[in-house]
């Protein structure tokens, strides 16, 4: 036991103290934040050169509305659309400042003349696009859009959407629908799902599913990040030839277990730091929203779900890490191990996608068996728990099978490791591996 602790401690302190650990701990949340901020930044860069669009409005009624949708300046839209705070939102601002609309004058010239003139201005790069709205556009619903750069699908689509809305509104006004009715008609559906469990009806706004997704995602991230670390830890002593000294002091299983636990504690430390940071941000965010009068509510999730969440996350993490340990015991260099580790990632992705069939039919035989297979159990069982909680014995059985498998894999890895260490250089064949596990 002392020996196991010594190994766990060494693995842990060596890694947590490493510069790499500190850098990734700080950098990853930062990178994630960047993913959130980057789109807004990119949009604001774009807004530096707004798209100049000339509209030839044959009806004389559409242009004002269209400009309301696409352009905030120079004069405010005819009516205030949606949320008043949206105007202050930088993303919303960027959206609106990326167009400059101009109404083509039709006084004293025919439509064809105006179009020829617009064509010339387009060619001279005075404008970026022009939009033709024939006088019967409200009836025919047909408009024409000409532009130099047709590959900019985003702004084309935005103009199309704005035109759609503008024309729809105009039609409603023509049909003598008043503003209030219009707003009422446009209100979106408030879709609320309710979960029926044996205990009765309870409200569930998908909080359980968020938990499952979070669990699956967390498992995926930590296996990706730390699988390689486990692999490296197992290979370390092979490459440095320390294995021989270690095996003259400890049992291979103790060594392998110590490594797994040590690296896992590192992973959990990092996740805990991230979790706390995220929690603090979320709390701050909720407060900010609340102070602006925007109601937020945390999804209601039973406490027991959190317990299962932690258990099955750990299960998934250990089952997949031991696979990495197994590969580490077979190969001689980390590079070689990286190639062999690819199937593990595939297995992990498959287990993630099993979310779909299991959530559709959580009580089926397929779902049952999937949630008993250690590699698929973490996601499958969590899905079953949040959709239609299976009997307790199934959950317990799944956990027992899973953790036993992890222990068994660790044992197998340690046997292979001990024998493999004595034969440097060549990678063993599968039958050889079986012989190694039996002997030694």
């Amino acid at each position, binding site marked *: 036991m002392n*020996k196991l602790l010594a190994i766990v401690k060494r693995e842990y302190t060596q890694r947590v103290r490493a510069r790499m650990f500190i850098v990734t701990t700080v950098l990853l949340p930062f990178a994630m934040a960047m993913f959130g901020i980057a789109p807004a930044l990119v949009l604001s860069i774009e807004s530096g050169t707004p798209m100049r669009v000339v509209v030839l409005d044959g009806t004389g009624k559409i242009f004002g509305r269209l400009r309301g949708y696409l352009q905030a300046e120079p004069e405010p839209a005819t009516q205030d659309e949606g949320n008043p705070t949206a105007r202050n939102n930088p993303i919303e601002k960027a959206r609106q400042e990326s167009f400059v609309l101009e109404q083509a004058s039709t006084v004293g010239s025919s439509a064809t003349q105006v179009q020829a003139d617009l064509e010339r201005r387009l060619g001279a790069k005075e404008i970026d696009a022009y939009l033709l709205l024939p006088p019967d556009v409200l009836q025919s619903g047909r408009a024409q859009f000409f532009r130099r750069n047709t590959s900019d699908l985003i702004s084309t689509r935005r103009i199309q959407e704005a035109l759609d809305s503008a024309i729809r509104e105009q039609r409603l006004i023509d049909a003598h629908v008043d503003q209030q009715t219009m707003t009422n008609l446009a209100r979106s559906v408030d879709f609320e799902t309710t979960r029926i469990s044996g205990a009765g009806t309870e409200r569930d706004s998908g909080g359980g599913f968020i938990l499952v997704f979070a669990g699956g995602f967390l498992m995926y991230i930590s296996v990706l990040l730390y699988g390689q670390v486990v692999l490296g830890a197992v290979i370390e002593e092979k490459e440095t030839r320390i294995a*021989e*000294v270690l*095996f*003259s*002091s400890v049992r291979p299983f103790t060594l392998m277990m110590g490594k797994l636990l040590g690296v896992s504690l590192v992973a959990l430390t990092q996740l805990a730091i991230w979790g706390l940071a995220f929690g603090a941000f979320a709390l701050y965010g909720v407060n900010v929203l609340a102070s602006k009068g925007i109601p937020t509510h945390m999804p209601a999730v039973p406490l027991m779900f959190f317990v299962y969440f932690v258990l099955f996350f750990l299960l998934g993490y250990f089952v997949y890490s031991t696979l990495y340990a197994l590969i580490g015991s077979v190969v001689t260099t980390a590079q070689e191990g990286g190639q062999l580790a690819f199937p593990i990632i595939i297995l992990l992705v498959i287990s993630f996608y099993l979310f779909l069939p299991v959530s559709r039919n959580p009580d089926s035989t397929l779902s049952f068996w999937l949630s008993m297979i250690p590699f698929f159990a973490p996601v499958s069982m969590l899905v079953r728990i949040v959709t239609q909680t299976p009997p307790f014995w199934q959950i317990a059985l799944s956990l027992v099978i899973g953790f036993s498998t992890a222990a068994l894999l660790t044992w197998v890895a340690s046997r292979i490791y*001990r024998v493999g260490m*004595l*034969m440097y250089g060549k990678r063993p064949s599968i039958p050889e591996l079986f012989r190694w596990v039996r002997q030694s």
Partner: protein
Amino acid sequence: MTNNEITVKVDHVTKTFGEFTAVKDLSLEVRPGRIFGLLGPNGAGKSTTIRMIVNITAPDTGSISLFGRKISSQLQDRIGYLPEERGLYKSMKVSEQLRFFAQLKNVSGKDADQRIDRWLAQLKISEWKLKKTRELSKGMQQKVQFISAVLHDPDLLILDEPFSGLDPVNVDLLTDVVLELKRTGKTIIFSTHQMNIAEKICDDICLLNRSQKVLEGSIREVKKRFGRNSVALRIEGGNGSLTTSDLISKIEHHSDEMEVLLAPDADPQVFLKQLINSGAAVTKFEMVEPSLHDIFIEKVSEAR
């Protein structure tokens, strides 16, 4: 001699790796308080034998007992092992590293710290205590690893080529340490193919070649067995007697002396008288013992 008085007993042990037989029907006994030389050319099976003794790998057939008991992981704590393949954690400090290895042998942290200081001082590397291993020279790393093998005060110390790559000063330093350990009653297995060192410090030897034992016994016995009745000789004049004497079977001329191999049952004293009677001035007359080196070469080339 009962089993209890034997530190290591290897009994008819065979170990194969696939097609290759690394050790074949090997039996040997290491007596307590002695330095046992496990000798042989590269690939003779020395390292495999040692790995079986320290319980890293198990024999296919035969048995090994330590201190009169069957080898087990508990007994591992009483063994100190310096493998031929050297390895230390590159980014750990010397003191951390040594404490870790001591803990793996069930030495408490506090005890370990005291012993580490003592050993570092004894091997004259105290000032490197807080340095990382990668900053150390190869020789210093080797000393650190030597310390890791003796830190838990093992009853049996196994050293596989402990001096390879060390300069003569450090070889002497470590030799003294090994002899000191022997004086305190430790049993030492010393594996090497450097015969001059083995000759200096081993009490008993076992020579392995091609997976098999070809020779064993105390150095004294072995040398006696190989006594070739030869004389290192330097004389002036009286050469005639050398060519006529029927006591001589062969003469080898070296730079300023010659080695005379006498006939199997010839008495060297009679030969000396003959020389003097023939009028030769004898400036050197010395009975030559075969060196371990010669014995090694002879036994190994015999097998080829």
